[in-house]
């Protein structure tokens, strides 16, 4: 048992449902108790979805516990098959059904006899994989199912498309800025003269999955979802895949160069160097920004980064490599894929943190007192309490992270968006200086901050007044350092003298 207040990645079935509901005309049936269909609320709310979420529950109640599901699951599948005529119904196990150990595959087989559409059981173990791993597996499972089906029926298309083409794999519902990223990638491919063969799973039809092998290569923009499917396609058809996330100027260029290499290896004759140069210098503002005097003010400022593998790694590289910001630590909650993360970021930050305990992450932020945080919604709230600005770069996210305006994170427009996000997260440079010179905006009372800062120490009136003269944005830090200094020396009353002694000792 684990005491938990918050979690970064959801349970496995959420991953399966994200894949199933991303496809067009695919319905998921959860074998779950009443109330577990919370996914529908999230999709309807966060994505402001206009259509009914194609997920229903085959309810597990007391009767099911006593006698087993019997006909119930099969009936629910065949009923949904008749009502909505989906191409595919995915029976989705939950934590509850995992421990009931009913033979769900048998239900699927029986339902398949009657159902007009296809029926499959999502092969995920609730206690071994999380949302992201389950999404990756389910996408692989569905792709494999339709490739094998086409093969059996003998209608698997032969050969590649005439012009260079790509499958974009891993765009899902409830993914962080996925819709905008998808648009940006399509635009990038168009600029490169590459046809988009298929985008999966978002908006795709399972009937078209048999055409996946026609692409020259597969692009997997996110580390978490799509890699299994891409590896499967490579193994079956030799289709190469590119798993470089085109996020940030340098990585986008690296991704495009890799595309060039892959296309040329298959007889294409492309040279994207001039395109990269043109985009980098004049279309994306990021390169120019990093040279501009604004960005000078960010030099050496401290930041921490936390999120999923894809976004935390990319943002860490952008901060350190493209903006000269000091990343004190970078972390991920994708513990199952920690080695990859370490390898990606270790040269760009002082420390790597692998954890899915939000308390530990909060403490790690409080410990280093960065000027800005780049993290999930949880880190945003830690930032609020510590009075440190935070840019949200990864799930878990709230409704405000599903903007209606165009906000990709990938490609060249993505680099512009990221510049704005990062720049706006730091206190503006000139304002910063003025505050320091004139002693802050105001002299209002300090509020104790810090995750577990217990202020048992007394401040004399003079010391308090002195503290109030310290600019607002560093006041908390000065206070904490002074108190730490006093505690170490068993001083219970903080005077102006103690304050300055502390400043001299720890540079508060």
């Amino acid at each position: 048992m684990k005491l938990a207040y918050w979690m970064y990645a959801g349970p496995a079935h959420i991953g399966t449902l994200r894949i199933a509901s991303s496809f067009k005309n695919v319905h998921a049936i959860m074998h779950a108790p009443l109330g577990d269909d919370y996914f529908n609320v999230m999709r309807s709310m966060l994505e402001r979805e206009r259509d009914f979420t194609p997920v229903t529950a085959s309810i597990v109640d007391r009767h099911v516990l006593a006698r087993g599901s019997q006909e119930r699951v099969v009936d629910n599948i065949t009923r949904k098959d008749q009502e909505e005529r989906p191409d595919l119904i995915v029976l989705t196990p939950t934590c509850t059904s995992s421990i009931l150990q009913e033979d769900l595959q048998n239900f699927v087989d029986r339902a398949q006899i009657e159902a007009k559409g296809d029926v499959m059981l999502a092969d995920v173990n609730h206690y071994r994989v999380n949302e992201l791993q389950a999404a990756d597996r389910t996408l692989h499972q569905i792709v494999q199912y339709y490739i094998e089906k086409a093969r059996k029926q003998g209608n698997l298309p032969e050969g590649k498309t005439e012009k260079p083409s790509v499958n974009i794999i891993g765009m899902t519902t409830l993914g962080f800025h996925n819709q905008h990223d998808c648009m940006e990638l399509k635009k990038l491919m168009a600029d490169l003269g590459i046809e988009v063969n298929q985008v999966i799973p978002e908006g795709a039809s399972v009937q078209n999955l048999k055409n996946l092998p026609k692409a020259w290569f597969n692009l997997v923009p996110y580390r978490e979802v799509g890699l299994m499917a891409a590896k499967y396609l490579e193994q079956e058809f030799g289709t190469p895949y590119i798993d470089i996330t085109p996020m940030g100027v340098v990585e986008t260029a690296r991704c495009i160069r890799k595309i060039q290499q892959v296309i040329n290896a298959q007889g294409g004759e492309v040279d994207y160097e001039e395109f990269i140069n043109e985009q980098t210098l004049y279309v994306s503002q990021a390169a120019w920004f990093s040279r501009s005097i604004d960005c000078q003010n960010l030099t050496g400022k401290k930041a921490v980064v936390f999120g999923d593998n894809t976004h935390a790694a990319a943002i860490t590289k952008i901060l350190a490599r493209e903006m000269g910001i000091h990343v004190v630590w970078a972390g991920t909650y994708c513990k199952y894929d920690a080695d990859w993360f370490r390898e990606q970021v270790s040269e760009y930050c002082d420390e790597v943190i692998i954890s899915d305990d939000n308390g530990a992450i909060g403490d790690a932020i409080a410990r280093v007192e960065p000027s800005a945080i780049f993290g999930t919604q949880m880190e945003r709230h830690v930032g609020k309490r510590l009075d440190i600005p935070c840019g949200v770069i990864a799930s878990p996210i709230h409704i405000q992270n599903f903007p209606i305006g165009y906000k990709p994170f990938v490609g060249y427009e993505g680099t512009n968006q990221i510049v704005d996000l990062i720049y706006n997260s730091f206190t503006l440079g000139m304002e910063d200086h003025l505050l320091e010179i004139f002693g802050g905006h105001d002299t209002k009372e300090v509020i104790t901050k810090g995750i577990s800062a217990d202020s048992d120490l007394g401040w004399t009136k003079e010391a308090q007044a002195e503290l109030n003269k310290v600019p607002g944005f560093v006041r908390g830090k000065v206070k904490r350092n002074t108190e730490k200094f006093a505690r170490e020396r068993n001083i219970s009353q903080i005077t102006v003298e103690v304050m300055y002694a502390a400043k001299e000792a720890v540079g508060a």
Partner: protein
Amino acid sequence: MTVAQPEGLNFDCETGNYHTFCPISCVAWLYQKIEDSFFLVIGTKTCGYFLQNAMGVMIFAEPRYAMAELEEGDISAQLNDYEELKRLCVQIKRDRNPSVIVWIGTCTTEIIKMDLEGLAPKLEAEIGIPIVVARANGLDYAFTQGEDTVLAAMAARCPDKTPVVEAEKHERNAIAKLLNFGKKKEEVQAEESEYVDHPPLVLFGSLPDPVVTQLTLELKKQGIKVSGWLPAKRFTELPVLEEGYYVAGVNPFLSRTATTLMRRRKCKLIGAPFPIGPDGSRAWIEKICSVFGIEPKGLEEREKQIWENLEDYIQLIRGKSVFFMGDNLLEISLARFLIRCGMTCPEIGIPYMDKRYQAAELAMLEKTCQEMGVPLPRIVEKPDNYNQIQRIYELNPDLVITGMAHANPLEARGINTKWSVEFTFAQIHGFTNARDILELVTRPLRRNNNLKDLGWDKLVKEEAKV
């Protein structure tokens, strides 16, 4: 329009494939209500994910609730339940020092048959904090019924005798008492004399403190003293329940609590409609008065006054129809109020219908329909959302009260919706809050009135017929 059928209400039961919140959501409002409590939900990531998302930003205010997240070792009994729970509860005691830890049993603890009721007394004795066990799981209950299971468990913890420590307390506060002596005594006596002599009355149901005050004062006007509330603001202040005390519910989903109070605590239940809407509030007070043989004073005028204040909102909904998909058990009371406001109601979906506990409310619904000359609604227990949506398309109601899973898709199809969960979090009880109910009910109509000239009613492409 058909005349109200004299044969009575029509009850149906469908498949139970409907959307509602998991009953563990009750921790979100109960931990705020019971200030010295800590709620430990013993379940899986699924439960945690639900709570974290459903409770939105509340999670960031250092909530007094947490998950005891079960891992594979717990499921396969490789780990010892007692030792694991002890470890977590000791940690909670150390970090938060609550007066009570409430264990919320979930689907998983049911299936693996973790004996929470058996483990709790042992652990309670060992760590010295009361542990209350409530099985609020999705196998048996829906949404607000979670509160019912918690309060039923709390009912067993209410003291059965007025504590005799009073004297000692007074002793300790001797100086303070001396200072205020004369004044205090006078006040207390004056207050006591305002009440009619009646057997003790305890109300049950968790309500925000302002609403508790409002309802308590409402009864005080009739000379009725509320001896206590289940739950109180603090676990240490749970009311005394002696045999023969009277109890009355304030919410329609508290049938287990009512049963427990009657059977285990030998209390007498006052079966009344619930104090939702001015009609319900008046009926609730009248019923309590009648049990105590009190002639209610000024209620008719009070109700009339409230209705007059509501007129601007009622104009917006009079003659319109409302469809309840059903997810929180407040449906019967709300429908009864809205019918009194002049609405028609073709269907009331409801997760679970306790005809005994809600008897007075059902009778009042029937009477209201007859008096307003509208057909009796069809009451659908354990509804089937898919079928309901087909019926909504046919009936084209002016307003659908539904969960968030269906609200946006229905709006996109030109159907006005109100998110049902808001009724459980808003203050809707008593005379004072009747306006708040209508504020919620009319909001989509007012909003869509403002937008109606834009011609953007249907925002989905017509689906191709197969």
